[in-house]
């Protein structure tokens, strides 16, 4: 059973279409990213999945339950880290976590130990009894994440989770996400503009634009789909540089440039021709030291998809 199933979901705010016939599934234990510009429909999707918004049409199921009719049951298994820390400045860190542990009905005996563990894990134990109003943005973000984890959710939504975090805290959050998914089998949905983060953490990504699903797949699949040709760096014996350039330039449709003697950069190669280039170099007796294909990144794919989405909108 998928953690999330959206089937032909449509939602509007007045005359504005927020989600257009959105269909996707997120499997249990998966780290899934929702990518898109502001207004792409990411937050609307999170709200619909948690029963805060009712879609105009379509089916939404979370662990097989409808968030609209079984909202309390669904939300007991989910947690949402909102983009800006939505903490009450007048409460202390401990009071914040305790209040939410009780709201999520965490067993009484577990509340204290779990709070202590989270405060320690996120480096706020020494400020446990300080009011949140005096916290830095990074500390607030860490406390918000601790609050989201206080009931050990099965499905965690992280909306721009590393905004405002320093590199150490960012790395810690990435580790938490990986640990939740890989070790504990939890499902994580990232809503982010940070494409590098999405590529590093996600099993699959969905690119949204104007409320529509533009693409869905693994980061590598999307990148390949959008940019099927590779750029390859080839290192050969510098003494055979000219031979290698002549050989590659003679192949149909390939362009070659030299970074320096012995290092060639071959652009726009169809993926299936890479083994052929290697074979020809070796067959010509040119010593081949390194052949490094450069995969197109998710960033390349994202911007290409947004252009496509703009064109079709």
């Amino acid at each position: 059973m998928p953690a999330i199933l959206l089937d032909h979901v449509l939602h509007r705010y007045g005359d504005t279409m927020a989600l257009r016939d959105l269909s996707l599934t997120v499997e249990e234990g998966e780290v899934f990213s929702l990518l898109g510009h502001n207004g792409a429909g990411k937050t609307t999707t999170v709200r619909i999945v948690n029963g805060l918004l009712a879609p105009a049409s379509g089916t939404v199921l979370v662990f097989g339950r409808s968030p609209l009719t079984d909202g309390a049951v669904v939300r007991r298994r989910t947690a949402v880290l909102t983009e800006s820390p939505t903490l009450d400045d007048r409460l202390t860190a401990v009071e914040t976590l305790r209040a939410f542990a009780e709201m999520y009905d965490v067993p009484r005996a577990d509340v204290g130990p779990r709070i202590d563990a989270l405060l320690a894990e996120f480096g706020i134990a020494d400020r446990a009894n300080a009011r949140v109003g005096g916290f830095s943005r990074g500390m607030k973000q860490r406390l918000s994440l601790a609050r989201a984890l206080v009931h050990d959710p099965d499905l965690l939504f992280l909306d721009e989770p590393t905004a405002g975090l320093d590199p150490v805290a960012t790395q810690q959050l990435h580790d938490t996400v990986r640990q939740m998914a890989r070790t504990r089998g939890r499902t994580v949905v990232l809503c982010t503009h940070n494409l590098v983060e999405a590529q590093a953490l996600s099993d699959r990504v969905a690119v949204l634009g104007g409320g529509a699903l533009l693409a869905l797949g693994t980061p590598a699949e999307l990148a390949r789909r959008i940019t099927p040709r590779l750029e390859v760096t080839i290192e050969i014996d510098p003494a055979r540089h000219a031979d290698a350039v002549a050989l590659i330039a003679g192949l149909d449709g390939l362009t070659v440039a030299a970074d320096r003697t012995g290092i060639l950069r071959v652009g726009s190669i169809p993926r299936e021709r890479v083994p052929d280039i290697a074979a020809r170099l070796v067959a010509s007796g040119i010593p081949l030291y390194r052949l490094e294909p450069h995969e197109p990144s998710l960033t390349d794919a994202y911007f290409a998809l947004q252009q496509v989405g703009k064109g079709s909108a």
Partner: protein
Amino acid sequence: MNTRIIAAIVRKDLRVVRRSRALMTPLIVLPVLLMIVFPTVFTFLPRILGGASAAFSEMFRNLPDPVKQQFGEFTEATWIRIVHTQMLAPLMLLVPFMVANVIAADGFAGERERKTLEPLLYTPATDAELFSAKLLAAWIPAVMIAFGGAFIYAVIVNVTAWPVMHRVFFPDLTWTVMVLWMAPAFAALGLAGMLLVSLRVRGMQEATQLGGLFVLPVIALVVGEVRGAILLGPMMAVAIGLLVWVIAGALLLFGVKRFKRTSLVGKL
């Protein structure tokens, strides 16, 4: 209904209110003024002003006949009884009304303004549990302050009036009905009014300004009492209390139907 969830939200809301100087100032000043300062000052007023007793006699003569008949000849003891059982009595109703009104404003509009409502909406609390918690967080302290204040008021009145009355004369039946029956009703009216306003506005300031309009029935009651237009006896207190309960109940019923996550999230 999960009472643990409701209790957690109530505790959180009250803690937040207790730590806000802006909220606590009116919550302390108003009860102190109406429950401690006013009874003390008004008991001693004839003695403080001394020669102005003619003015009080004139005021007594202008009261409606039923009131005069109830209190008999005008003396200092009469003044004390009129002031505490008639004139000042409805003012006490301002306390539960305002306390509920202020706390409800913070709990609904204030929480939305601070952007702390959204994480609450993501919790497993049902709409009914959220609604109940928000109501109780405002109603319970309002009623407790009203009851506590009424007790202090009664003690002050009896102590300060002892040299004149020579007995425990207060509270009378009307006042007891007001405290136990009308005060909780006015607290409910205060929070129901604020709830309706908060569902429509975004900010705390807007909410308190509009929600304050619901105080007009209390003001009307006070003015009516002072001018002698309303003679508040036990039956009248029961009747007015019932009317306020019905109005507050209707407003709350109207509010609960609109208190839905799917509506609230639109105003985040």
